[in-house]
């Protein structure tokens, strides 16, 4: 959809939603729900419970603050992702605080829970994504979640293919560092 057309369409929908029109809201919701959920699930490294919680909070925030959305600044989906990114930062910050609290009922003799280990790895990955520079996260998402070819990313971002490849390399390195040294890393949580 051409930019002008999108801006006009979303302006109309915004006015209708501000007046309380449920059909307009439903149109927006149906259009954006799947893409937003895919984004949130990626940022939660596949942890569905966390993704469900963040997705719900994102939509509730959006419907309350729709007066702040300006279609000329970007698309509705882009705005939603911005809200989701902020909620994700707060979410993982809370998770980190919970992990730092002593486990009252922890039994060191209990057999290892492997599903717990997988969850812990996923949480570390999600936290690492949150700590990445937004541009690094965006290029990793474009390449690996959206399966966009490097030349298509370059076209969309108005960059050269070489610049995108170089950015991808730096993003992967930053991802490794954030994973190994980040706030959820084993070094931080081991006694």
């Amino acid at each position: 959809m051409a930019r002008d057309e999108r801006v006009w369409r979303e302006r109309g929908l915004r006015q209708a939603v501000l007046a309380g029109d449920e059909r307009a809201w439903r149109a927006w919701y149906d259009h954006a729900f799947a893409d937003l959920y895919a984004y949130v699930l990626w940022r939660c490294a596949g942890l569905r419970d966390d993704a469900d919680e963040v997705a719900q909070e994102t939509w509730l925030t959006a419907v309350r603050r729709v007066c702040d959305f300006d279609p000329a600044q970007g698309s509705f989906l882009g705005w939603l992702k911005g809200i989701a990114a902020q909620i994700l930062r707060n979410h993982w910050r809370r998770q980190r605080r919970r992990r730092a609290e002593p486990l009252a009922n922890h039994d060191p003799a209990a057999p290892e829970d492997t599903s717990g280990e997988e969850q812990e790895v996923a949480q570390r990955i999600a936290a690492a994504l949150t700590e990445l520079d937004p541009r690094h996260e965006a290029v990793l998402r474009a390449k690996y979640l959206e399966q966009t070819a490097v030349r298509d990313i370059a076209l969309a971002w108005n960059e050269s293919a070489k610049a995108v490849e170089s950015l991808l390399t730096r993003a992967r390195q930053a991802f490794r560092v954030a994973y190994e040294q980040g706030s959820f890393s084993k070094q931080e949580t081991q006694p």
Partner: protein
Amino acid sequence: MSDLLPDPLEDFLHGSFDRAADERLRQSVLEKTSRVLRRRRLLRKLSFAAALAACFVAGVAVGSRLLETSPGVPAPVHAVLPEKEVESTPAVPVGNEAVAHEWKAFDAQQDRAEIYFEAGRKYLRENQDYDSALRCYRQALDFASADALAVSADDDWLLITLKQARRKDNQNANLN
């Protein structure tokens, strides 16, 4: 430096997981957000109704006082006009300036707001016809620019009340 990431990261980047949301989540979030919209719609209706009720009560209160304190005032001329949502057409009792002004506003191509304001003032001061004054003031505010919502020293009590209610309505619409 090797670009190969530790296994969990490579597994995450190159792996795939089912991205589809649970349909129950989708429906549940839709219902919750729709509820917020319904509350917003109800609040708008209630605030508009409250503003109209306030205008009506104020009009009746002041009107009865005026009638008590003004001996020999002729009975108010109530023009019988069909109700229309957007525009109403005034009836034409002979010699009634307020009605003539309202007709003029109805037919005007320019300065409609001003002429409606004048018609409203005449209905109120000359005829004590509060219903017609309210109608004309509402039309005037619909046609006037945003600046016209500012209260001025020449405004009568009815117009002041309507302007305040309209401004509050606009603020509520912006907040939501």
